[in-house]
């Protein structure tokens, strides 16, 4: 069917890529969504890549150097797609552009489970006549389903090397590399049908010939109940409740029994001793190790002892949930409800991510089908979804006083999300595109890839979250000791004491909260407040300006106007609702108490 040989086109291989000024030869990883491309990427490069089971997370692609035949190539993980012609969405457009850039070679991940669709895409890829190696992946699932695929028949028909692999476990990936070494310098000329209709026919014929299946009783139906309203919804609620219980329980345990004792007995005493030995200046000592905003104390305690444990427990849980392939089931269950506010069920994923950090949440809205949906979900995250740092702070603030108040904050968060969604839908009426998605098979996550992913995310928090928090605390310490905050408190006192009924000192978290979400909460801890005042503070913090980094992300992903509007609207809403609560509570107490 096909032939390859050292013919013309030799010039093409001299063509190099211009990437950020450097010239790189590239190797492209191609395949359908959720077939193990990212797992192969991760195993090949040894660097960090996000491996996820949810359709769409690879719209951002990853790249890392890889050595073949003593030459360094840039391995690019193309977004998972179904189709290379007439792109339907951004992912397909990105993948098509990558093909047009003519990489040196392609590793095509042929999914043994989605054999026909994979083959259909492979034929479109082969049309480009770029040296291609095929990894026939998920052969373990294939065997467990009683299927066999005739590898040599495929090899002969398509004239490519086909290597059976199990990417999740790393099986046979060395062979893929070996085949790549053999293929990369060859000139190739593949013969494949180019008409869509012929292509599907060829695919179905090949499938008929190459695939043998012994029929089995339990197919995908086994887990079908997860997407049924009953028992799917109760199960989803149970899963999410378990997740949050774990996040809070594990995080609190980590904090109380490991991190706090560690810092309090092994780190802080030495820092105090060291500073006291180095300087006698009262001001400098106060800035560095003072009770309130001592930079070397709070700058370590807040980001690393109070917030980090919850970051670890949240991402551990979220990554497990992603890698099992369960999340798309939640999206299907919620689809009908989300439609009522003009969104599709897949909006549930960015919203859930938002409970971790708003920035990846806003970025992940890229996988949503329309700009309107992206904007709605991003604004919902900004208004009503507390990030994990802030949740950690809420726990420290509320849960230890009143679990009820803590749960109530989350109830308010969900309620507010619906309201914001409804308003956004009213402002920006648009029809919702059809829901059409594959529910990936449920998997037991591979521990190695899972731990890599969690590590990657925690490292991201340390770089993008903890460092800015330390900087913000540093400036707060200086301003505080220079007497800036009392003056600010007096200036803001009509709002803070007059309207919100909080002490003047509570103006500090309002100012700091602009920089970091949890800083709108944490300073309240050190004030002597009643539970109602704590709750007012928490309520204000929930709706208040999402951190400055999120505003910047909004400006980048949408535009400056949107970012400014969100900035103003969140501040106004936070103050309005906080005051309303404080006054409402006051009025009720006067009536009944």
């Amino acid at each position, binding site marked *: 069917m096909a032939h390859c040989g050292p013919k013309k086109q030799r010039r093409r291989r001299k063509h190099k890529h211009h990437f950020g000024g450097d010239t790189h030869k590239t190797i492209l990883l191609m395949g*359908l969504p959720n077939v193990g491309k990212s797992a192969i990427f991760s195993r090949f490069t040894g660097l960090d890549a996000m491996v996820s089971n949810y359709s769409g997370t690879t719209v951002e692609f990853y790249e890392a150097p890889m050595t073949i035949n003593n030459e360094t190539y840039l391995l690019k993980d193309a977004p998972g797609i*179904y*189709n290379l*012609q*007439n792109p*339907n969405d951004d992912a397909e457009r990105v993948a098509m552009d990558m093909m047009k850039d003519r990489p040196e070679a392609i590793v095509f991940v042929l999914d043994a*489970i*989605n*054999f*026909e*669709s994979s083959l*259909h*895409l492979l034929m479109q890829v082969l049309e480009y006549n770029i040296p291609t190696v095929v990894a026939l992946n998920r052969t373990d699932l294939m065997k467990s*389903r009683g299927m066999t695929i005739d590898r040599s028949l495929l090899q002969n028909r398509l004239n490519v090397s086909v290597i059976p692999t199990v990417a999740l476990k790393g099986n046979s990936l060395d062979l893929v590399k070996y085949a790549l070494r053999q293929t990369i310098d060859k000139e190739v000329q593949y013969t494949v049908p180019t008409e*869509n209709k012929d292509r*599907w026919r060829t695919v179905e014929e090949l499938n008929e010939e190459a695939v043998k299946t012994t029929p089995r009783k339990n*197919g*995908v*139906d086994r*887990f*079908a*109940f997860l*997407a*049924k*309203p009953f028992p*799917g919804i109760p199960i989803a609620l149970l899963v999410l409740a378990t997740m949050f219980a774990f996040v809070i329980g594990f995080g609190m345990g980590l904090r109380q029994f490991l991190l706090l004792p560690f810092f309090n007995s092994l780190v802080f005493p030495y820092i105090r001793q060291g500073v006291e030995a180095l300087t006698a200046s009262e001001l400098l000592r106060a800035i560095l190790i003072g009770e309130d905003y001592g930079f070397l104390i709070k700058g370590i305690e807040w980001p690393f002892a109070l917030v980090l444990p919850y970051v670890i427990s949240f991402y551990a849980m979220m990554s497990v949930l992603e890698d099992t392939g369960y999340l*798309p089931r939640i999206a*299907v*269950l*919620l*689809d*009908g*409800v989300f*439609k*009522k506010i003009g969104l599709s*069920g897949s909006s549930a994923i960015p919203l859930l991510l938002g409970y971790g950090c708003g920035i990846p949440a806003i970025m992940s809205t890229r996988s949503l089908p329309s700009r309107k949906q992206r904007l709605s979900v991003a604004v919902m995250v900004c208004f009503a979804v507390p990030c994990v740092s802030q949740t950690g702070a809420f726990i420290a603030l509320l849960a230890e006083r009143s679990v009820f108040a803590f749960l109530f904050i989350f109830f308010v968060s969900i309620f507010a999300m619906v309201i914001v969604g409804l308003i956004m839908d009213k402002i920006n009426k648009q029809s919702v595109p*059809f*829901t*059409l*998605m*594959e*529910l990936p*098979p449920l998997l037991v996550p591979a521990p190695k890839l899972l731990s890599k992913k969690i590590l990657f995310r925690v490292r991201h928090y340390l770089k993008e979250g903890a460092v800015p928090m330390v900087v913000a605390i540093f400036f707060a310490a200086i301003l505080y000791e220079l007497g800036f905050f009392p003056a600010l408190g007096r200036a803001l006192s009509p709002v803070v004491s007059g309207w919100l009924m909080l002490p003047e000192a509570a103006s500090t978290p309002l100012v700091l909260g602009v920089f970091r979400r949890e800083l709108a909460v944490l300073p309240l801890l050190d004030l002597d407040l009643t539970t109602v005042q704590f709750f007012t503070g928490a309520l204000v913090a929930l709706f208040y300006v999402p951190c400055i980094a999120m505003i910047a992300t909004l400006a980048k992903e949408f535009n400056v106007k949107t970012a400014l509007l969100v900035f103003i609207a969140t501040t106004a809403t936070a103050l309005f609702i906080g005051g309303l609560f404080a006054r409402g509570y006051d009025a009720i107490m006067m009536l009944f108490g």
Partner: protein
Amino acid sequence: MKPIDTYPRTQSFDIENIHSLSRGEEGTISDVPEMSLLASLGLRLGKRVKLLSKSFAGGPVVLSVDDRSIAVDRELAEKITIRK
């Protein structure tokens, strides 16, 4: 795609849309809108599909085709016809 009329059929009421299947029922696709994603997800002429579940509040139906689970919008499901 072949037009629906070229398929031999004995009685016209054998034809239904996917959404009217009840849970666990199977059928063979006799007509499907021309969408590349539908084809890639396995929803093509002559394919055997089984309805796994229906959602509530106008949510999608979940089908099994070639041992894959595909969630299809209710409106779209009504445009896919099948023969039992």
